[in-house]
C-alpha cells in the first residue's frame, strides 16, 4: 500500500470516525465520567456479538440479500453450547465448533432455499427466524441454562489490555471480513452480483454458490456471536438477541451499506456498531429513559441514510 492509498482509505471512513468522535466528545462534556478508559472498554466488551453479526450481515446485504434470522441463530447457538456443556458436560472447545457448525448449516440452508427456488431471502430468513427460535425453546425447554465460569473466559477482559478475547476476535473478524471483501475473488464476486446478478451470470460466472456462501458465512458468525453472548451472561438464554437482526441492519446502513446490494464495507459496518453502542451507553449515562433512547437511535439511522443518499446523488453529478 502506498501512502496515498492509506490516506484515501482513512478519508473513506473520515465521516464515520468524525461522527463517532463527535458523540464521544459530546457525552464526555455532558457527563462527568464518560471519557474514561473504563467506560470505552466496557462499551467495547459488551458488543462483540453485534460486531460478528454485522460482518456477516454486511456480506449478505452486499450480495443483494438480507438475513433476518441472525438473532434467532444466535440464540440457537447458545442453546447448543448450553445443552452440550450442562447436560453432557462437554468442554467449551468441543461445544463451540458444534455450535458454529449448526448455525452455519442454518445459514447454508437460508442461502440454498433462497437461491435455488428463487425465493426472496427476506421470506426465507423470516421463516428461519421463527424456526430457529422455536428449536431453541425445544432444546432448552424454554429455560435459561446456567453454565457458569467454564464459558466466562472468552468475555472477560484480559488484564494487560483490559479488552476481552471476544472483542479482539471480533476485531480480527472485521479485518478478515474486509480483506475477504476487497482482496479476494469471492469478495469481488459478491459486490458484482449485488450490482447486477444477470450481468455476472452472462460473464460466465456461476452466481449461486457465491450467494449461498455469503449466507453460510453469516450463519457461521452467528455461532461466534453465540459464544460471545453466553460467556458474557454465563448462561444460555433462549430469549436472547430478539430483534438483534434490526440492530445489525441498522449498523450496516449507518456504515453506508446499500440495502439494494453492490455497495458496502465491513469496516464501515464496524464503525456503525460502535456509533450505536456509544449512543446507547452515552444516553444511558445521561439518565435518558429507554423510550427517548429509542427515538434518538431511530433518528440517527434515518439521518445516516439521508446523508448517504445526498452524498450518492452529489457523487453522481460529478
Amino acid at each position: 500500500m502506498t501512502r496515498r492509498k492509506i490516506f484515501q482509505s482513512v478519508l473513506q471512513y473520515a465521516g464515520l470516525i468524525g461522527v463517532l468522535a463527535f458523540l464521544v466528545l459530546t457525552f464526555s462534556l455532558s457527563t462527568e465520567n464518560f471519557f474514561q478508559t473504563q467506560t470505552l472498554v466496557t462499551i467495547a466488551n459488551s458488543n462483540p456479538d453485534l460486531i460478528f453479526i454485522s460482518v456477516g450481515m454486511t456480506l449478505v446485504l452486499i450480495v443483494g440479500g438480507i438475513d433476518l434470522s441472525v438473532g434467532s441463530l444466535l440464540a440457537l447457538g447458545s442453546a447448543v453450547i448450553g445443552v452440550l456443556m450442562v447436560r453432557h458436560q462437554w468442554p467449551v472447545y468441543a461445544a463451540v465448533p458444534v455450535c458454529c457448525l449448526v448455525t452455519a448449516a442454518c445459514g447454508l440452508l437460508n442461502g440454498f432455499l433462497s437461491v435455488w427456488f428463487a425465493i426472496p431471502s427476506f421470506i426465507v430468513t423470516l421463516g428461519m427466524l421463527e424456526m430457529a427460535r422455536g428449536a431453541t425453546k425445544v432444546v432448552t425447554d424454554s429455560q435459561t441454562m446456567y453454565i457458569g465460569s467454564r464459558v466466562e473466559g472468552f468475555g472477560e477482559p484480559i488484564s494487560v489490555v483490559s479488552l476481552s478475547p471476544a472483542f479482539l476476535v471480533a476485531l480480527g473478524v472485521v479485518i478478515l471480513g474486509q480483506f475477504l471483501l476487497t482482496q479476494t475473488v469471492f469478495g469481488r464476486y459478491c459486490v458484482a452480483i449485488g450490482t447486477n446478478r444477470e450481468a455476472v451470470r452472462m460473464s460466465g460466472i456461476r452466481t449461486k454458490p457465491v450467494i449461498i456462501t455469503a449466507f453460510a458465512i453469516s450463519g457461521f458468525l452467528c455461532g461466534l456471536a453465540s459464544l460471545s453472548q453466553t460467556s458474557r451472561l454465563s448462561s444460555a438464554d433462549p430469549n436472547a438477541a430478539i430483534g438483534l437482526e434490526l440492530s445489525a441492519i441498522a449498523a450496516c446502513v449507518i456504515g453506508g451499506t446499500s440495502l439494494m446490494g453492490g455497495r458496502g464495507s465491513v469496516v464501515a459496518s464496524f464503525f456503525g456498531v460502535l456509533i450505536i453502542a456509544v449512543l446507547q451507553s452515552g444516553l444511558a449515562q445521561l439518565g435518558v429513559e429507554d423510550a427517548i433512547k429509542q427515538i434518538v437511535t431511530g433518528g440517527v439511522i434515518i439521518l445516516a441514510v439521508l446523508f448517504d443518499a445526498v452524498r450518492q446523488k452529489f457523487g453522481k453529478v460529478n
Partner: protein
Amino acid sequence: MAELLRASGMTKRYGNVTVLRDVSMEVDSGEIHALLGANGAGKSTLCKIISGLTPASGGTMTLQGQDFSPSSKHEAESRGVQVIPQELNLIPTLSVAENLLLTRLPSTAGVIHHRQLHNRARVALDRFGLTEVPSDVPVGSLGVGRQQMVEIAAALDRDATLLLLDEPTAALSGSETRRLFESLDRLRNRGVGMIYISHRLEEIKQIADRVTVLRDGRYVCTSPVSALSVDAMVDLMSGAATVVDVQKNMSRTETEVDRPTTDRPKADRPKADRPERPRDDLDASADAFASQVSDGDVLTVQGIRRGMLRDISFRVRAGERFGITGLVGSGRTELLRAIFGADVADDGTVAVGQREPRRFTHPAEASAGGLAMVTEDRKQNGLLLQQSVRCNTTLGALRSRFSRWGLIRGASEVQQTEAMCAAMDTRCAGIEQSVGTLSGGNQQKVVIAKWLTSGADVFLFDEPTRGIDVSARRMIYRLIAKLASDGKGIVIVSSDLEELLENCDRIAVMAAGRMVKTFDRGAWSEDAILQASFDALDKIDGAQRETALK
C-alpha cells in the same frame, strides 16, 4: 374523403442522432394507411410522436384541421388518437371487464358497480365479435391471441377517430386475424382513420388503402396499395428501386400487378441477380448448408430448438464473420442466448473448435468452452454500471487470470485494464471511473474488453453498435476484423443490414425462428436479403394458417 391527420416535416433527434428526418404523411377519415419500412426505418418513432409518447424535434401536425402536438399520451387520447401497442398492456390479475374499462370504471364514491361494469364490457366484447370471452375471468387466464384481441377491443371501445396499430397480428392466429380485419373494416366504414404497421406484406395488400414507405428515417413515397406489388414494396424499403422505377414498371404491367417482377431493370444501383426461390427452399437451404463440411470450422451449431427456434444449424469457419439478420421478433437474440446457454435449448448441440459437441446449460460452461457473448442490452446484462472500468474489464477472467489462491492480484489487474483501455482507445478519466458515467460507445468498448480479457475462440455479438457514436462504431468494426484475422469465429446479429453487408463474409436470414436463407459475400444485395425475410414470413404465416384451419 376528409383529411384527418396531416403530419409534415416530422423530425426526431436523440442527441446528435437523427432517427426521423423530414417525414410527411396524411391519413384520411375512413382510410387504412399502412406504414412500411425495414427495422429502424422510423415507423415506430413516427407513431410515438403521433400518439404523444415522445415530442417531435421538428415538423407540424394537424388533426381534423386543428393544430396537434400532443405532449402526453393522455392528451393524444383526449383528441381521439388511440394506440394498439405491439406488446400487451393488460394487467393479468384483473378481470377482462376491469381491463377493458380501466380508465373509466363505473363507480359511485369510489365503489365499483359490478353489474354495470360487466354489462358495458359485454357490449364492447360483443361488438368486436368476442361473444365467447367471459368478462369476469382474469385476463391472464386467456391465451396470448385472445389477450391481444381484448386489448384491441379496449382501444376500439374508446371512440377513436385515429387508430394506430403496431403489428397487431403478430400474436394472432389466422381466424383471429380475419376477425380483426372485419372489425377494422367496420371502423373504416364508420369513418375512423387508421395507421397500420406490419411486416406481413400480404396482410397490407389485403387490408390497407394506401402505403407510405420510410427508409433510414426518411420519407420514400406514398402510393395506393393497389398500385404496388409485394416485391415492389420490398424494393422501395430496401432502396433497390425508386418511386420512378416502380411507377414506370407499374404502368407497363398494370394488368398483372401482383406478379413478381424479377426481371425489372434497376436504375439506381447495380444489383446482384435475385436467386431462384423454389417452393421448398426453406428446408432445402438449411439442409444443404448443414451437410457442407470444412476442416476449419470453429463453431458448429446443430439442430437448436427452443421456444420459437426451429431446428437451427449452421457452421462458422475460423476467421469468418457470420452475420444474422431478420425482422424484429425473428428469433435472432433467442438463438444467440440458446447457443451461449443463457437460456437452455430443448434440443441441439454446439461444438467449438475440436471440442466435443454439447449443449450448454449455463454461460459459465459456454465461457469455459471457448464462447464469448456481447449482449444486446449492455446496461441490463452486460455491465456492472456502478462499478469501475477495472472491475468490469477483469470480471470474466478474475479467477483464471488475476488471482492466486483466491486472492486478487491487483497489479496485474490494473496493468491489463490499462492496456485494454489504451488498445481500444476507451475514453475514461482513469480505470477507477464507474462505467455508468461513460458514453455508450465507451461502455461497449468495456464490454468487449471484458471478453477479450477472458479470451474465446468464438465471439457472439448481439447488436454490437446499438446506440453508439460513429468513431466508437468504427473502432468496434476494426476490432471484429482483427479478431477474425486472428482466426476467431465471429457471429454478428444486427438489425442494421448495412452494418452486416460491410462487415460480414456470410449473412443468414432468420424469420419466425428459422434460418431461411444464407448469402455469401458478393452474391447478396440488400434487396434480396429483405425479400428473403418477407417471403419466408408470408410463407410460414400461410402454412400456420392452414394448419390452424384444420
